């Protein structure tokens, strides 16, 4: 019996808009209109501005730990516009702010979350967005379940889950991919490969050449895209969504991008990566190349830019004001949302803010009135 090849594969990489703002016209056909590109550029700019404001809020003690999205905005906006707001689910990690905003999440919710207030997770009715996921790589399975439910209920939506390169090392990643593949659910796995999981570089995360190839093992269409290119991100996500809607099951997208900032405000990336590396990625910044593209097409000007900067500043200032204007939650807030109905002991803890029993239960015998104590 001769040895024969039973499986062969290749991983394609797609770039449509290069670092200089040059477009591959052929691939760009039927993708984004100029109007849409302007819209996405504005969304990225507003998100970037909020990021910088959030950083300063943290540094001045007005907000807790915050993970900047800086450098990865094209992934969020390109995917968000390819998906249908209110129909498709977004199941994010925590570096997709702009996608959440585009699908209707009020911007101050993100600040509230990082200001240590759970109400930032209280997703408004009608939005198909799950709250930010802090533990790495646990939420992809939820996206699979949501997609599965939509399939069972014969809804036309798809679920798109975002995660980083690090998340693909978690066991739950395997579970999510395997369930999605075997159940053929309408789910898009969007991996923002930003090269670093805190201090751990991509090469240490996996010995494989690409992350995209992991999907092959689950029988899933997969490809790599330039994650700083809104056209490539849009096209890959749109194709995956169309395929899912048509009953073609899940898809995988590995988007090559870069975390220009620290992991969070609690991190100092200078400890583990070189300035040269960061500088080389600054040249690939999605905002810069999108602006170049718009300028090339006479769709942009310095005047428009300063107007946008002004507007972004105004919007974010308003968002900060809203978030900071929300009063600290009442202590009841800790207790009231654990169950649909609060059990008696929990109610007692809520109403007394005590866990010891003496002095809390009027019927309890033995407690002397203050001053009667022998010891004191």
């Amino acid at each position, binding site marked *: 019996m001769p040895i024969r090849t039973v499986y062969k594969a290749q991983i394609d990489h797609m770039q449509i808009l290069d670092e200089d703002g040059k477009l591959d016209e052929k691939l760009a056909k039927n993708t984004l209109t100029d109007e849409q590109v302007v819209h996405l550029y504005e969304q990225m700019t507003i998100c970037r501005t909020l990021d910088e404001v959030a950083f300063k809020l943290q540094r001045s003690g007005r907000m807790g730990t915050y993970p900047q999205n800086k450098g990865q905005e094209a992934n969020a906006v390109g995917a968000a516009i390819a998906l249908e707001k209110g129909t498709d689910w977004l199941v994010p990690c925590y570096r997709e702010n702009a996608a959440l905003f585009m699908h209707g999440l009020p911007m101050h919710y993100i600040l509230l979350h990082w200001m240590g207030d759970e109400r930032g997770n209280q997703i408004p009715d009608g939005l198909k967005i799950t709250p930010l996921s802090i533990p790495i790589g646990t939420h992809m399975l939820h996206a699979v379940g949501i997609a599965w439910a939509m399939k069972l209920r014969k809804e036309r939506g798809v679920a798109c889950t975002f995660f980083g390169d*690090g998340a693909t090392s978690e*066991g739950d990643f395997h579970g999510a991919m395997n369930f999605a593949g075997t159940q053929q659910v309408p789910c898009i796995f969007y991996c923002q490969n930003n090269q670093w999981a805190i201090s*751990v570089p991509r090469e240490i995360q996996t010995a494989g050449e690409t992350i995209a190839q992991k999907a092959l093992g689950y029988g899933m269409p997969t490809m790599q895209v330039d994650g700083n290119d809104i056209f490539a991100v849009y096209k890959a996500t749109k194709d995956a969504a169309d395929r899912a809607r048509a009953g073609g099951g899940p898809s995988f997208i590995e988007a090559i991008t870069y975390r220009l900032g620290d992991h969070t405000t609690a991190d100092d990336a200078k400890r583990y990566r070189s300035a040269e590396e960061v500088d080389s990625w600054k040249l690939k910044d999605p905002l810069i190349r999108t602006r170049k593209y718009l300028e090339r097409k006479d769709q942009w000007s310095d005047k428009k830019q300063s107007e946008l900067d002004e507007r972004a500043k105004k919007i974010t200032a308003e968002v900060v004001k809203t978030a900071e204007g929300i009063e600290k939650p009442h202590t009841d807030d800790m207790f009231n949302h654990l169950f649909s109905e609060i059990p008696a002991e929990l109610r007692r803890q809520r109403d007394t803010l005590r866990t010891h*029993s003496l002095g809390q239960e009027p019927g309890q015998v033995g407690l002397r009135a203050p001053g*009667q104590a022998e010891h*004191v």
Partner: protein
Amino acid sequence: MPELNLVQAINTTLAQEMERDERLVLLGEDVGANGGVFRVTEGLQARFGAERVVDSPLDESGIMGAAIGLAMGGMRPIPEIQFEGFLGPAYDQLVNHAGRMRNRTRGAIAVPMTVRVPWGGGIHAPELHSDSPEAIYTHHPGIKVVVPSTPRDAKGLLLAAIRDPDPVVFFEPKRVYRSYKEEVPEEDYTIPIGQAKMVSEGTDVSLITWGSMVFECLAALDNLPEDVSVELIDLRSINPFDRDAVIQSVQKTGRCVVVHEAAKTAGMGAEIATVIQEEAFLHLQAPVQRVTGFDTIMPYYKLENEYLPSAKRIQEAVEQVLAY
């Protein structure tokens, strides 16, 4: 004697023991080049090499399970799980494998490893970065659990844990990491796992706690009337815990308050109170009281201080126990 904080004490102890025992291997997320997100392993990779201080893939189950294998293979692994809230994915490996291996092989195979885990609240961290799950792992047989509250104790307990032939979960109170310094002897010493520490002797009430709550209890003591004599015990080891120290103290004082950060229901306070009524029933002058976190999810940081037992709540419980 150098004055060290908790981070430095653990760091120097790890270095000392790695020097002494070549079988020691550190593995975890960001423990190498970055020195850990709390810098507890700072400088160790540069000193001992990337083979012994390993930046692992982002996989808690993998870290724990591979550490079990390393231990079975003759190494002495010290896996780090970055925050106690991330123990979840590693739970199966820890409780169902590390905790059971010796028993299920009738002693033929053991798992000598020390799982280092930053633990507890009080630093205004994000979700799942502030929990106190010591009772959960204590409930599972076969795993020892310690929570040192000071740099000096951390050194002695860490050396005891590393040299222990069984798995030990070594919880490090984040709130204490850099907030308290003391002299730590440079020489080699161990503190037996299962031995409590008498922080202050007293005759009126026993106050039993561990981790960062030791400092909250000390603050409560400052506010109590001077003629109240409180015996403050830092349990240090949760599993096994020092039953004798607790029983003897309560036999003397007749009154007891247990303080912990974790939720009340089925927390360690319940176990301690039960042991007290089993062993010192006729000595009790008042019901044992628990001052703990509430039976809620640890809230995001805006309500963190309201969740954690405060000196005021501790003081009030002590006064009420005394007034009983």
